[in-house]
């Protein structure tokens, strides 16, 4: 049910979201992190909100990045070095601006493409139970189950897309590496073997001149 990108306010829940106290938001961004660079993102979160940060490195080098999540006081909630993929859930202990950073400072010349998905808050229910007099009708409960199923479809689709992109990036790297190394090896092979013969010939030619001089 949720399209890719920032998923809230969800269109069918526009009215519901306006009434709901806590807004559910999700931001996913794919960006390029140059070598020796650090990129930080900030988000204001209310206390008690359950949040999830998920990231994956899609292309570049060893496909790893440093990630760090800090709360408004500067306390480090999550810190991992050289991770390819991770998912971290936490509940905001206080109001304020939370900060998470991705660092490629350990890399000297490889750019990394990083994807992250930061979800704040739970999705509000499709049919709110506040001003209901009856239980959900069959139609409505069918809608709810379709909504849940589609949410997981989108989730799996995103994960698969990222894994496939990573695999494809590795395959393309491998292909270019095989091509260049093979050409290089063939050239080296030719150069070395032809060089060997001429070098040997030159040894014998020098000896010749020395013997002649000694003779006379």
């Amino acid at each position, binding site marked *: *049910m949720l*399209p*890719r*990108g*920032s*998923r809230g306010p969800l*269109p*069918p829940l*526009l*009215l519901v979201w306006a009434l709901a106290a806590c807004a559910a*938001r999700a*931001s*996913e*961004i*794919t*960006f*390029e992190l140059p070598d020796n660079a650090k*990129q*930080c*993102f*900030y*988000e*204001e979160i209310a206390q008690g909100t359950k949040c999830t940060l998920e990231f994956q490195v899609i292309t570049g080098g060893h496909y790893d990045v440093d990630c760090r999540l800090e709360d408004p006081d500067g306390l480090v909630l999550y810190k991992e070095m050289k991770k390819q993929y991770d998912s971290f859930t936490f509940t905001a202990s206080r109001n304020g601006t939370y900060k998470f950073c991705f660092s490629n400072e350990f890399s000297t010349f490889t750019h990394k*493409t990083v994807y992250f998905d*930061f979800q*704040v808050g739970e999705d509000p229910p499709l049919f709110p139970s506040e001003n209901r007099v009856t239980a959900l009708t069959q*139609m*409505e409960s069918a*809608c709810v189950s*379709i909504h849940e199923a*589609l949410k997981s*479809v*989108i989730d799996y*689709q995103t994960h*698969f*897309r990222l894994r*496939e*992109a990573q*695999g*494809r990036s590795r*395959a*393309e790297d*491998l*292909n270019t590496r*095989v*091509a260049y190394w*093979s*050409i290089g*090896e*063939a050239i080296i*092979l*030719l150069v070395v*073997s*032809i060089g*060997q*013969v001429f070098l*040997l*010939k030159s040894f*014998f030619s020098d000896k*010749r001149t020395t013997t002649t001089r000694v003779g006379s």
Partner: protein
Amino acid sequence: LALYFHIGEREEKCIIEDIPSDTLLVGNYKVQRWDIHIHDFLESAPGLGMFVTVTSPTGEVLLSKLYGPQGTFTFTSYISGEHIICFQSNSTRFAVIAGSKLRIHLDIRVGEHFLDESAIRAKDKVNEVNIRLEHLIEQIHHVTREQDYEREREEKFRKTSEETNSNILWWAIVQTLILISVGIWQIKSLRDFFISKKLV
């Protein structure tokens, strides 16, 4: 507009969106400038604008416009692939001014179709469910488009792997042939050389 990040005044920041064809992408942004005097970001700096450039996978520029400090931009992809969305402020001040930076709030939505306003106001339950179902169908079409695109990408992946495989085989054969022929040439050449030098 919750998520934000900082960039330098003249810096260009790009994000990548890998989307299938015929997909609508809507972006909301807000930019604020750091003020040295009050040590905070100004709510709205006058004259501050944002160049938004969208490049398609083939390198063609789909969108290149100057927006105000806060705005919305949309575009529909024609081709499946990686679209690059770049932001650069129109600030003419040089980054030499210490501590000068911009805060960009960003919210990108892909494949979202806006629910018809009438659905919210529909008093008739049947109508409301109808419209929600139509919206659901639209979403499922988006899922299908994504899956078709995924199929294309996987095929490209498979082709690359098979190309690597045949590359390895081909180059191994070529190298072995070079090795054998150069070895034979070496022996022949040396033998002729020694015979001519009357050492053999």
